[in-house]
Every structure is written in structure tokens, then in C-alpha cells.
């Protein structure tokens, strides 16, 4: 197939940036979306033009590195996959495709389609852990956890931290990402001791990073490649209220 790509080009964080159009031809439907961009980049390099910079690593939907808004949708037109799992058979010959970076104040553009997501790391650093040191853990089977609870914790833990939820949200809220971690640890007995301080610290950090407020539009859930559920946001609202009532943190 032959396609016209409109790609956001921005030299660095201070450059204004803008769209540039590129034609690509002979694209096989078996290619992945990123392989299609590889083809473009090889052509650009041969022509002496700077290749399009984009983030990617595992190319199998688990590392959370790839991050493109394709035709206005984070990770493109298909449900429940990342950009690297998108294949060209989802497009038609002659299509125009617009490709942009995640757009959010808390995710400044580094170059072209690459953004800085270190705000997510700082949210985890604020409390996304169980405070235990290496060594001295009790036998793993000492604390039985009902399968239903373990499964639900796993649903939340499946978050890959890509940031599509933020990119999808009109307020650029990081609530789905933040709740996924809080919810996982709130569900498990291991996380119980610190549950109140954790929710307060992580929510505080989230706001501090400049993410917007959550107004429950559900756009995050719809675009999440791992289908993380809004249920976790609801749980975090309850956790937060409980924490406010019972603790003196933050």
C-alpha cells in the first residue's frame, strides 16, 4: 500500500515543532506500524534527513515504551493493543495517517514523538511499594490470598506505564495509572500496613507533577492497551476518603 503520513517533528524540547508530510510506498500489510516507520526512517537516512525519533523497545506490547497518538487515538485505532502491536493490515491503501506524541503538560516532548514520562516514576517513588528490605521475608505460603483477590490485584498490576491514559484524557489526568498501583497494593495483605499513607502520598505527587483532575469521563479505560478498569479509580476514591479520615499524613 501507499500512504501519506503527517508526523509531528520537533527537534528538541525548546523547538516549537510542527507536522510534516511524508509519502511511503510498497508497505506490506504484514508489517507492524513501527516497521512501517522503520522503512520511512531508512529512506530519510539515505536522503540525508534526520530520521523520525520515536520510543520503542520490546515491540511486543509489554514494556510500555512505544507511545504514539495515531489519527487522534493513543496507540491507534484498535482496542487493547499498543502501537508496536498494531499492524498495517488495519489500514487501507491511500490512507492519510496523522502521528503525534502524547500531549500533556506533565509529559514534555523530548524530540519528535518522544516524551518525558519521568513523572510516572516519581509517582511510584512517592509510595508505590511495600516497605520491606531484602531478606527476612516469611515463607511465601504463610499468607494465603484468595484467588479472586490475587486475580484482581494482577488485573491492576498489568499496567505497563505507557501513559496512554494521560494522552487520552482531556484533563491529562494520571488517575488510571496511579490507581492501578494503589489498588493492587490495597487489595493485598502485604500492602495493608501502609495503605493510608500510600494513597495520600501518591495522589499528592500526581497533582504535584501537573497532571489534571479526574472527572470520570472513562476515556482512559477505553484507550488503555491493557484494559485497566475504572473500578480501580473508584477503589482509590474510597481509599483516599478513608485515609483522610484516619491519618495525619501530608
Amino acid at each position, binding site marked *: 500500500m501507499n500512504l501519506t503520513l503527517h508526523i509531528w517533528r520537533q527537534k528538541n524540547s525548546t523547538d516549537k515543532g510542527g507536522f510534516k508530510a511524508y509519502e511511503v510506498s510498497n508497505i506490506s500489510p504484514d508489517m507492524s506500524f513501527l516497521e512501517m516507520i522503520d522503512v520511512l526512517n531508512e529512506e530519510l537516512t*539515505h536522503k540525508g534527513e534526520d530520521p523520525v525519533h520515536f520510543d520503542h523497545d520490546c515491540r*511486543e506490547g509489554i*514494556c*510500555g515504551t512505544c507511545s504514539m497518538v495515531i489519527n487522534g487515538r493513543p496507540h491507534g485505532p484498535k482496542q487493547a*493493543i499498543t502501537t508496536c502491536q498494531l499492524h498495517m493490515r488495519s489500514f487501507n491503501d491511500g490512507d492519510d495517517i496523522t502521528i503525534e506524541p502524547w500531549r500533556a503538560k506533565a509529559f514534555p516532548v523530548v524530540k519528535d514523538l518522544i516524551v518525558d514520562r*519521568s513523572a510516572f516514576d516519581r509517582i511510584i517513588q512517592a509510595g*508505590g511499594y511495600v516497605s520491606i*528490605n531484602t531478606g527476612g521475608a516469611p515463607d*511465601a505460603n504463610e499468607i494465603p490470598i484468595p484467588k479472586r483477590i490475587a486475580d484482581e490485584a494482577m488485573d491492576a*498490576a498489568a499496567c505497563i506505564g505507557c501513559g496512554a491514559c494521560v494522552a487520552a484524557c482531556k484533563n491529562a489526568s494520571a488517575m488510571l495509572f496511579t490507581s492501578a498501583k494503589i489498588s493492587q497494593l490495597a487489595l493485598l495483605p502485604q500492602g495493608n500496613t501502609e495503605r493510608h499513607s500510600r494513597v495520600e502520598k501518591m495522589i499528592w505527587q500526581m497533582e504535584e507533577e501537573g497532571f489534571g483532575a479526574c472527572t470520570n469521563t472513562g476515556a482512559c479505560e477505553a484507550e488503555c492497551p491493557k484494559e485497566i478498569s475504572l473500578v480501580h479509580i473508584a477503589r482509590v476514591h474510597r481509599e483516599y476518603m478513608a485515609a483522610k479520615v484516619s491519618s495525619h499524613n501530608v
Partner: protein
Amino acid sequence: MALDSKIPAGPLAEKWTKHKFNIKLVNPANKRKYDVIVVGTGLAGASAAASLAELGYNVKSFCYQDSPRRAHSIAAQGGINAAKNYPNDGDSIFRLFYDTIKGGDYRSREANVYRLAEVSNNIIDQCVAQGVPFAREYGGLLDNRSFGGAQVSRTFYARGQTGQQLLLGAYSALSRQIAKGKVELFPRTEMLDVVIIEGKARGIVVRDLVTGKISSHSAHAVLLATGGYGNVFYLSTNAMGANATAAWRAHKKGAYFANPCFTQIHPTCIPVSGDHQSKLTLMSESLRNDGRIWVPKKAMPGLTAKEAVSIPEEERDYYLERRYPAFGNLVPRDVASRNAKMVCDEGRGVGATGQAVFLDFADAIKRLGEDVIRDKYGNLFDMYRQIQGDNPYEVPMMIYPAVHYTMGGLWVDYNLMTTIDGLYALGECNFSDHGANRLGASALMQGLADGYFVIPYTIGDYLAGMAYDKVPTDHEAFRQAEDEVKEKINKLLRVNGDKTVDEFHKELGKVMWDYVGMARNEEGLKIAKEKIREIRESFWQNVKVLGDNEEMNLSLEKAGRVADFLELAELMVDDARDRKESCGGHFREESQTEEGEAKRIDDQYSYVAAWKYQGEGREEALEKETLEFENVKLTQRSYK
């Protein structure tokens, strides 16, 4: 230098305990006087950095990704082994040890492997305490499964995302130490050299991948946990950025490289679909529990999965079941891979390229029902459909082997120290525990064993003998290393040729796959050596790297990595030529049994091949560490 593996004396089961007692300790109050650099934030690096910081050391942690959580460990699917024996099916530390030694085809150290099995149980305890949501049974206890042909169920898992959950556990421990100010994190930072002062590793030179700035970091010890080098083959199941640069540059500074030719080729991956292919996707090994592998008895070029459905039973060759009645489709990875290659070489491969075999679930679906299969493998089937466009509930999958893991790596002693004092290697980056073939679910175990439970002890022994003084980064040795790094970068930018970095990488990958892949022979290896040299020469004359150093520049990053692969590749060939026996993943066609199985030659090759760099353009020198087996009897593996 004679290689000293520092294996403690005494009975196997007591070595580690005794060693922990005998090695020196650093007083708790003095730990904060030592700085430790940890390069890599995968399972090995993140667990090490967090544990060392908890002990009180000042840690600096580096990775090339934008976040430590994205290290390649995240992609591991199947699970992690431990000798818990929760299912009461006869597992023990000794059995895990024995299986790992045997699975590695008797090319690893008994003492290291025993220690690995010994600490495996602590790993599971630690991860559960962190909140890793392992799969559980209805009674609330942890679930185990059998994996990769093991005779006991010792694999712990978290759906098909075990690596992700373990890494997020280690990342959370790391994050906690970052918040406490005990770990300083440097993401999007690539280590380009190690700095040695008076024979000791005292720091590293790095490039900031956003600004291009070259700078130095000084410390009392340096840990490399930088992963494997499978991407030397261009196509592999590794992440796109996985590379050998850190290990290779350390090697050029004096760290010996061990068993570089030991690579693992995984039998169940999605086949190559065309020249545009950028990486290969693993389909979990667990599929072989229910899928049956076959090709047509007579060559049928271009046979598609849809057409396969109507091929009658008597025209199918379930070649693994036929050749290995005892193990069938569950033979070890190397055996399964080699057999797939054999049938494809005979012209019986299927699909458009002829480089694929069928993995068929029709029987399992008939026997168990589609729902049961969906329950077990639903996400894998969806993934397959997404990539291939075929529905595996209706037609067989097509699979082919792909490069997956590298058993070789930096030589380390029992303390995980390389041949450079104060330079350690952990995880896939070292050569230590898997011999010539790694068993499924044991890489995660090894990475976490090294990081959580080995290095926190062994590093103390070294640091206790070090003065507290810090070397300033304006020391001449740092300056010189920075200049060398800069010169190498400038050289890459100056060439301004007409071929892209990827074009060279693909060319190298093809040579490696054709001659240093699943089967190797003297003549092919000679050709490979010549070809690699030609590609390397051409690279330095014709590579086209655009832009400058002082910016984010992905082609420059990649160029540096490919330049290193081009050197490492030749050493892999040398190593494969030296080892004229077949063992594990290393199959020398000259050394096979009458039935075409791998034949070890124990009286000549029971050694670790450790290679010493001798300078630009010179052949490397081989030193041998003889392997002693006191607790297991060497047998020829048989899966008939």
C-alpha cells in the same frame, strides 16, 4: 593470569553458608562511605541496586530506557523456578541443581548452580512480600506449573507476564531507595566505558542520550547487569535496544569473555514474514504442552495454515513424537529447534518462506474443548492472531526457532567478580549458571539470585579491603576514557558513507544466523569469520550516521552498538571453532551421534572458554577453566 574461580572448599551443600561466614563484612556505619555503580535496571540490576542501597551503600543506577521499569526483563512470560516443593512432587534443592547442571549439558560450575538452587526459595518469599501477584489456587496458596519439560512443577508465574511482575517488584524496591536518596537514578544514559585505576574498576563514562553530553561517574565498585547479546543476530526475541556494549567495552578493558558461542535458540517463535522484520516474537513454551508439531511427510512448498487443515493424518509427520517417543513435543529447546531446522532444510518447511513448522491444537481442542484451551492460552492465541492474522483455534500456528538468550557472557568468579578487580557482572550479562543451555524459567531466577542474594554479601568482601577515598572524575584516567569515547563517536559521525546502520546490522545478522546459528561446522565458521571482517571493514568506511553528538540521536546510539556487535561476532566464531564438540545449544555438525544427536566430548572440552582481549586487530587469547564434577555423573542427554 590463571583463572581462579574462588569456589569455596567443603561439601557442595555447605559451600555458600561457609563462604558467607568466611568473607569480610563492612561495618554498617561504614557502608555509606562506599559508592557503587550499577549499570542496568533489569531483574539483576534493579534487585542489586535496591538491596545494596538498603544495606547503606550509596548507589548510582543507570539504564538506557526512559524508565528503569522498561528493562528487557519486563518481557519474560513463562515463569520463575524455585525448589519450594509446594506441590509435594519430589522437588528439592538438589533436584533443581541437578536438572540445571544436566540441562546445561554439564558445562557450568557445580558450586554456582547449587547456590542458585539454594537461594531460589528466598526469591519467591521476597517477591511475595513485595506484593508480586503470583498465580494462586482456590485455597489461596501459590500455584505451580511444570515448564519446559521439567518432571516436577516448580515454576511460579503471574499469568503470561511473570517477568513484568517480578521486574515491577524490583523496580518498586528501587523506587523506594530513590525516594530515600540512597539511589541516584540516571535513565536514558548509556555506559560507554569502564574506567580502571591501578588495576581496579573505579567508574564509568556515560553518554546522556537526550543531550549527548559525555561525562564520568566515580565509585568504589562497578556492577554490570546489562543483559544479553542476542541482538548480534539482528533478529531475536530481545528488545530492540538490548546490546553488548557495556560488556564488550569492559572486555576490551580486561574482563574475560566466557563461552561467547553459547546461544539459545528458542523453538516456538513467530516466523519471519519478510525483509521488513525488525524483531521476533516468542510464543510461550507452554504451548508445547498441548500443541503438536508437524510438517508434511513430503515437501509441499508454500503450504498455508488454512490448507494444512485438510492434510490427512497419514501425510503428516509429527517428527518430534516420532523421533523422541518418551518426551515428544516436550524435548528441550535446543533439540526442538534443531529438529525444526532439519525438516525445513529437507524442504518440508511450510508457509510462504518454507521456514516454518506447524504447531497444531486441533487434537487438544477436540479432547479438552475450546474453552479449556482459551483459558490456558487465550492471550497467546490473541497475540498470534494479532501478528499473523490467522486464527489458531481454527488453523495450526506456524512457528520457527529464533535467537532468544545468551548463556555466554563476562567471566565471573564465585563472587560474581570479573577478571577486573571491583568490576562485577550479574544476570544474563555474566556466563555463570546455565552452561551450554538454559532451562526455561531459570533466567529470572538467576538474575534475582545474583541481585538480591549473592552480590549483597560478596561485594562486602571486596569493599572491606578498600580505602574510603573517592577518585575525582577529573582524574587523568577518566579524562582519557572520555576522550576515547568522544573519539569513537566522532569517528562514527565522520564516515558519512552511504549505508545505514540497520543495513549493516542485517547483513551481520544473516551471516551469524547462517553460519553460527543452530548448526555450525568448521568450514562455515571460517566463512563467517571472513565475512564478519569484511562487514566490519565496510562499516567503518561506509556507514551513514546523520546529525551530531550533542542531541538525541538514535542512529548514533545504534551505530555504537552495532560496531561492538561486529567485534563480538568474530569472537563468537572463534569460540565456536575452538569447541569442536556439540553441547547444549552449540551443535557442531562434526560431533554427533549416529542418530544425529549432539555429542559431547567430555575428556577434551569440560572447560569454560574464557577469552582475553589482546588489542585491536589481534586474535584473542583463550584461557580454560576446567570444570570439576564431584556430585553429578556426566551422562549423554537422551530424550528418546
